């Protein structure tokens, strides 16, 4: 297993280097003037030439590439041309927001979706199964932006229960600011005993979280159900029933366990994608996450930010995949001996 992990880590370094190279080439091929973007406003020809020299853009492309990789190896990601802030701090700040939202979403989806899928499988064609199916079809069919806006209209516009956008109300960030420790506001507010901050952060995360949960619940519920239906036909399950093993034990200890490997794959991939940014949801709710940042950076041809964020995303995606692969060993002991 250790050998496997080492092999995967070496492969990850290769993949990250490939991502850096491809993204770097793409950023240079696209028609734009990074110097002009950095200067902003309406720079003069002289100002643009000076900025290009300052940024090393007058150097040959291979030299620029070597300089960039050399800077990266020292943890220097440069400054965003669009925001003027260091890319590393921009990305890490936003990563916290995305991590908090998507991790909570995945946890909720697992906690709700798997039991719902099991119950649907056990009570096939019952009212519960039909309701779960309706939720699944709805979740898959509704575009995320429609769902997000509908939830805004209901919970903010009509009921006035929940805030519309942002991660925390400006007034709270002024009067009861949440001290960043982990960059996860709910946890940071709890750690510092900032109850106003906690309540506000919880209220702000509710709508984007609900949107993501509804969207993802469909997939997890239906996959769990379908796999459980197949597993429940297996002979060992029938035998367990025959021996009088309690139903809950059969469903959750024996049958569900058999579905865990494909479930882990689906959940892992979904989580990896979400960490890359639930772009539409982040955009509509002005959630200051990584997804919206990457999109804005790409649109603006902000190459230091695009490169830095892409590198982070590649690392996250690869790490999540590695963790999922390692969990296979935990779930299925047979794999450890192979």
């Amino acid at each position, binding site marked *: 297993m250790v050998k496997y992990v080492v092999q995967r880590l070496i492969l990850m370094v290769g993949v990250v280097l490939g991502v850096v190279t491809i993204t770097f080439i793409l950023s240079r091929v696209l028609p734009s003037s990074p110097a002009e973007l950095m200067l*902003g406003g309406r720079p003069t020809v002289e100002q643009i030439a000076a900025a290009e020299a300052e940024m090393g853009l007058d150097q040959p492309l291979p030299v620029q590439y070597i300089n960039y990789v050399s800077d990266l190896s020292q943890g220097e990601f440069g400054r965003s041309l669009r925001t003027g*802030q260091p890319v590393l701090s921009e990305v890490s700040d936003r990563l916290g927001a995305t991590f908090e939202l998507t991790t909570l979403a995945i946890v909720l989806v697992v*906690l709700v979706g798997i039991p719902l899928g099991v119950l649907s499988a056990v009570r096939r064609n019952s009212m519960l199964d039909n309701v779960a199916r309706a939720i699944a079809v709805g979740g898959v069919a509704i575009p995320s932006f429609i769902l997000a806006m509908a939830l805004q209209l209901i919970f903010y516009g009509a009921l006035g229960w929940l805030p519309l*956008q942002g991660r925390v109300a400006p007034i709270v960030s002024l009067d009861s600011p949440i001290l960043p420790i982990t960059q996860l506001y709910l946890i940071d507010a709890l750690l510092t005993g900032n109850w106003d901050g906690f309540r506000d952060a919880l209220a702000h995360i509710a709508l984007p979280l*609900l949107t993501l949960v509804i969207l993802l619940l469909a997939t997890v519920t239906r996959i769990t159900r379908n796999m459980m239906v197949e597993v429940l036909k297996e002979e060992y399950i029938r035998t367990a029933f025959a021996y009088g093993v309690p139903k809950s034990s059969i469903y959750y200890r024996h049958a569900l366990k058999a579905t865990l490997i494909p479930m882990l794959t689906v959940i892992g991939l979904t989580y990896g994608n979400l960490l890359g940014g639930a772009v539409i949801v982040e955009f509509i709710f*002005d959630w200051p996450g990584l997804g919206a940042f990457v999109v804005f950076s790409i649109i603006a041809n902000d190459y230091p930010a695009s490169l830095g964020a892409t590198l982070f995303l590649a690392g996250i995606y690869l790490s999540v995949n590695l963790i999922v692969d390692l969990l296979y060993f935990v779930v299925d002991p047979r794999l450890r001996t192979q």
Partner: protein
Amino acid sequence: MLRLTKLFAAIFVSAPLLLPQSATAENTITWATQLSYRDMNPAVSFGAETYILGNIYETLFLYDDGEVKPRLAVSWSKSDGGRVWNVTLRDGVKFHDGSQLDSAVVKKSFEYTRDLGKGAGYLYADLETVETPDSRTAVFKFKKPIAFDLVASGQYGSYVIGPAAIDKGHDWMNEGNAIGTGPYTLTKYEPNKLTVISKFDDYWGGWKPGQIDRVIHPVVSEASTRVQMIKSGEADVVRVPVSQLAALDALPNTSVATSSGWRNQMYLLNMQKYPTDSKKFREALVHLWNYDSVLNDIFQGYAKRPLGPVPASMWGHGKYDIGSFDPQKALKLLEESGIPKEDWKIDAMYSNSNQEQIDAVELFQANAAQVGVRVNLLPQVSKAYMTKARSASTAANMHSMVWYPAYPTPSDWLYSLFKTRKENTGFNLSRYKNAEFDAALATAIDAEGVDVKESAKAYIAAQDILMKDTPAIFFADVDRVFTHSSSLKGMDKSSNPAYETLFIYALSK
């Protein structure tokens, strides 16, 4: 697991009950913006930051209602043909850190902007020295005549910066620190998320009851979210797409404030690319533009018909018939152009970030098709747009342009957009070359520092030459439009075409 699920469901459902009441102080307003800021150093900023910097920093002069008025300067005079400007400073002005405004501070600020040479610092490239004979007098000496009162009333590169901020440097200011003399201090700055400014108690202009104490200025990218915020009262000031304005104006709790602006829109016609290198062909295109429909249907009345390249609310503008929608006349001009009918096809390139320009050019495409002109639309991501438009190999026949001056002068349009360029196109996407126009423009610019009235005449003479060559379709002098809560007073006084910002000091609740 089911128990855990129930627990999470309970937490989620009870979230609304936990929501704290977002009570704000009576004189706090929320101004939601779609803009993100980057250069918080006023010596470098040449963009959207002026919306907030304009309330924190001040210029020596204020351009208002067509004339230069006192601000940090109380009086001024010029000599040596506009090369020397003697400025008397206002007494008793404090910076946000408590230090006093004096001539040495002013000297330091202007020299800092000049030496940095970034943003609009080029405006002071000809500043030789600033002498300080006494604490209230600053004598500016330039290499060439300059309309210093106009230049230094502009919102870019002319703010007086506190000496401590200059000492702490560019990065310190960009981290969200500011020392100005304006009515508001910068109290919080989270890039692309939130800016907060608060009342400066020692502001030289003093304070009256009801004025705004604090402005919460969050970035809200999504237009529909801003609409909901203003409707619900969560925001007091927003900017929304023009399509939303009529509905918002009809609501009892929201109003739309409109004023003339200096931002204008045009399509520059490439005079070096076939077939728009033909003057008759360009004139035909002018008559295929449905001005009334663009102004009334696309801008919904929130823009005015231009009188020429320079907005009608700016001094030195001409009065020209920019054309009328007349397909028959256009067809006649097309035939007179001698260009074969099979070559009546052009490319129109525009930034896909400006909805009005997209709608306008799509309407133009449909109108042009009626007389057999095929318009190929080339939308571009905004940051790639200028690179493609400038390159001879990728340039189109028509290029969209939105312009706003760095300071109150017609030269900003005429010099930047139409002066002959030898090597780099710059913003002259028409590739306009006319020595006669260049000479007339040079005369006008030289006169600006000596006699503004003479300069205005010379600018009009230059525009007379320009308009005969039909280098562009000028189609909209765009109004400044803010949607605000009806309880907010003073919106009419807070808006000035010379400044993009809203002057919060003029507002009250």
